């Protein structure tokens, strides 16, 4: 069965949805940059705690570059410090920040608010756009998809069109909206560069990670790092370096 579609549908439905979705993405990109909070520095003690932990893991990962004795000296020193819980930010109150208390802490509260802001930036435009398409462009066939779909998609892609036997390839404007939602990432990459914040479906789930982290007991993290570090026994690259250099240049 072949349908003849009014060409003005293309001008007044297909292009408007396409361009409005691109522009909403661009707008969201710049709005996200504007709302993006400047990263906050913690107090000196917290930073010192993290830096010390980083020293330990760096030593563990890059220990190959040290000679054997140099590594062992550093290893024994760091294991000792980690076990003693030196450089903890707040040794008495460590790990007491459970989620109920977390909202009282202004720093944590802001973190939660920022992640919620990011989420809202994703969800609100999406909801508005879908409502716009659904209310303005409902009830007619817009286009023919170039690929066949199974009959299960009929209810979703031909919503508002009361024809029983119409091929699923004829779809309404809502499915053009969904195609845009899925596929505009590349166009954003083309317009805004690869590291854009315009977001598509892929970016929607990503914001949720790291929003809520219940209190980490840093004393335990230190103990774990001490154990890992004590087990590390890297073979120094300086062993036999003379032979390798001679082999390389001979």
């Amino acid at each position, binding site marked *: 069965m072949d349908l003849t579609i009014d060409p003005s549908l293309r001008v007044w439905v297909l292009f408007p949805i396409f361009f409005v979705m691109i522009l909403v993405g661009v707008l969201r990109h710049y709005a996200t940059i504007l709302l993006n909070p400047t990263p906050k520095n913690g107090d000196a003690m917290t930073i010192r705690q993290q830096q010390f932990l980083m020293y330990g893991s760096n030593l563990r990962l890059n220990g190959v570059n040290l000679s054997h004795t140099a590594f062992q000296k550093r290893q024994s020193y760091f294991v000792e410090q980690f076990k003693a819980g030196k450089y903890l930010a707040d040794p008495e109150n460590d790990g007491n920040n459970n989620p109920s208390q977390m909202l009282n802490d202004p720093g944590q509260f802001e973190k939660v608010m920022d992640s919620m802001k990011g989420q809202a930036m994703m969800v609100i435009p999406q909801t508005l756009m879908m409502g716009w398409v659904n209310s303005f462009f409902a009830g007619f066939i817009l286009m023919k998809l170039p690929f066949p779909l199974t009959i299960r998609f009929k209810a979703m892609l031909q919503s508002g069109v009361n024809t029983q036997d119409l091929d699923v390839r004829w779809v309404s404007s809502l499915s053009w909206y969904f*195609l845009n939602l899925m596929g505009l990432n590349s166009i954003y990459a083309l317009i805004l560069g690869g590291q854009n914040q315009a977001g598509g479906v892929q970016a929607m789930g990503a914001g949720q990670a790291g929003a809520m982290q219940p209190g980490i007991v840093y004393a335990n993290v230190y103990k774990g790092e001490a154990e890992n570090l004590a087990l590390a026994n890297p073979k120094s690259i300086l062993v036999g370096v003379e032979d390798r250099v001679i082999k390389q240049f001979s």
Partner: protein
Amino acid sequence: MNAPPQQADTSTDDWAANPLAGQSIAENTKSIQYVRSVSSLAIGVGAGILHLESYYGFLFYAIASTIVSILLYTVSSTGNPGRYFVYPVKQLFVDDIFAGLSSFLLMWTLFYELVDA
């Protein structure tokens, strides 16, 4: 492509002696993703203008993106992708193929519709 992550001499497969440059690897991976997403748009435009339907369109995408992979392999990384990527074959031929598929579908549908009328 960016500076090679590995030193030129790869005679020893010891990564400690020939360390990987994480930044360059990340940058190279990003540039692959960019090429993939832009080329998938172009492939979609092509498929739409050629007025391909159903399986032929997907076949076209598979063939064209393989050509892009081969070009990345031979031209962009000068036939020696081991210098730029940790897993060259996997990164150039397998990853990101399906990431571009949705953009391909979008452009294919759009241009199919425009040519149709």
